[in-house]
């Protein structure tokens, strides 16, 4: 029985390590895709990477976008967009003075596969720490958790 417990723990550990590795390789792919915009920086220099999608729950995307508007020009993280905003108002992100908003095509982001909808990846010690994908059923909790970690 004890051995079964150890086996399960080992399997779980393996799964976590594999998933961390998978997410890390996705970050590498994303870094490659954004290399021109990152200039000499690395994604690992940042504490978080956020993506605002225009697909899916409109209210959720809008609330998340509004929260991220307070993070414009933050040196701690970057905001990724896949359009100039045809459903959401991205005008604040489009200003010439903005330094931490980057653009990628939807197809390319899908290939990278790290965020399939609006969400944020928190990095810690060059590793993926937490991924929060915005969901309508838990929106308020998710937003307050993100806000807490951004502050």
């Amino acid at each position, binding site marked *: 029985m004890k051995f079964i417990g150890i086996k399960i723990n080992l399997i779980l550990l393996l799964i976590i390590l594999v998933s961390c590795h998978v997410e890390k390789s996705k970050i590498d792919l994303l870094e490659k895709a954004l290399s021109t915009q990152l200039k000499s920086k690395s994604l690992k220099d940042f504490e978080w990477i956020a993506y605002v999608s225009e697909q899916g*729950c409109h209210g959720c995307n809008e609330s998340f976008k509004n929260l991220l508007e307070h993070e414009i020009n933050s040196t701690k993280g970057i905001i990724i967009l896949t359009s100039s*905003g045809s*459903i959401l*108002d*991205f005008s604040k992100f489009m200003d010439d003075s903005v330094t931490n908003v980057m653009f990628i*095509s939807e197809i390319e982001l899908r290939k990278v596969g790290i965020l*399939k909808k609006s969400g944020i990846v928190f990095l810690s010690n060059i590793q993926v720490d937490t991924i929060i994908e915005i969901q309508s*059923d838990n929106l308020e909790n998710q937003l307050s958790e993100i806000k807490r970690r951004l502050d």
Partner: protein
Amino acid sequence: MTHFISISILFVILSLGSCSETHKLIKVKEIVFNAEFNPRLPSSGTFERNDSIYYYLTDVATSKKVNVYNSAGKLIYVVDLHKASKILDGIDNINMINFDTLFGFNQAQNNLVLLDYQGNILKRIDLDSLVDHRYIFRVSTKGTFYKDGRFYFGTGIPNNQYRNMGSMENRKYNGRLMLDLPPLIEFSSLFTNEKPSFKLLLPGYFGNILTENDFFVEASYYSFTDESMIYHSNFNDSVTVINLKTYKKKLYQLSSNFSNIIVPPVPIDSLDRIPITNKLRCYGAINQILYDSSQKLFYVLFLLDTHGNEEGQKSRETSIAVYNHDFEKLMEEKWPLHKYISFITINSEGLILIKYDEDNYIPKQTKKYTYEIYRYKN
């Protein structure tokens, strides 16, 4: 002898070729429009005046403007929506019917406005105030919503319920509620001096097509012929044609040569819209129906079964079918829709498909929208 046999074989092949299907969609024109924004395509379209055709691309969200082009793709003028957008606290949709007549719609407030070519609000109408309090619907401007002085909106769940979606029980309750709602509302005399009125069309339509309660109710779509409205839903293989003078209904069943097009009931097992939408994306469905009044025929865009698309990662398989005025199929061919933006429209030149351009995400760069126009030839 050998020559005789070869010639005979060639003759047989050519004869067979001439007997085969000759109905085709032929590309008749290509127009390139340049815009400095990503337009919201359901708010972009085309209108005709004095035998000339005009096109407009709209960005209600970020740059808040409407670019109006001639049929050669030249930008003629720009309607600035900043002022109206500020007054209305946002515009969700635009329908342009002439050089100086635009209708704007704000979904949160159920306000409809008449705008001039400078973007000034000429008249503002609170749709809720026109409807009996028992029928306070959210209205949707998806698709064409104006014809001959009448406005048509899809109906959603009542306003007071909409914000109350925080639990599975509420979501299911709203799903059940929608089954009994008429999906369409017609307003007339909105911008005249007469008293505005409304009519609920197709009562119980969702109830007819959905037999159980807990199904996710997806939007329905409508388009027009000269005298009728064409109505269909993603769930169903039937199309309803409503004569707009008599309100008599006719039902036609459509089928695709390449796929089943009926969506089985999908249970509401998540409060998140995306997984449910992705489930629906595995099934074939009627996506769009457009009427070509110059050739008196229908173009139908079918989404085909795309199994294994639960993650929403795959490009949808699609086909385009052409039907005559009585919904008899004339042709259907598979179409590489991944090369196009999945929004099609129509005018007297033909069926318009918009090409997908991967570079259009790049900000502060002129974006290119290539419209390919097709006509049915037999």
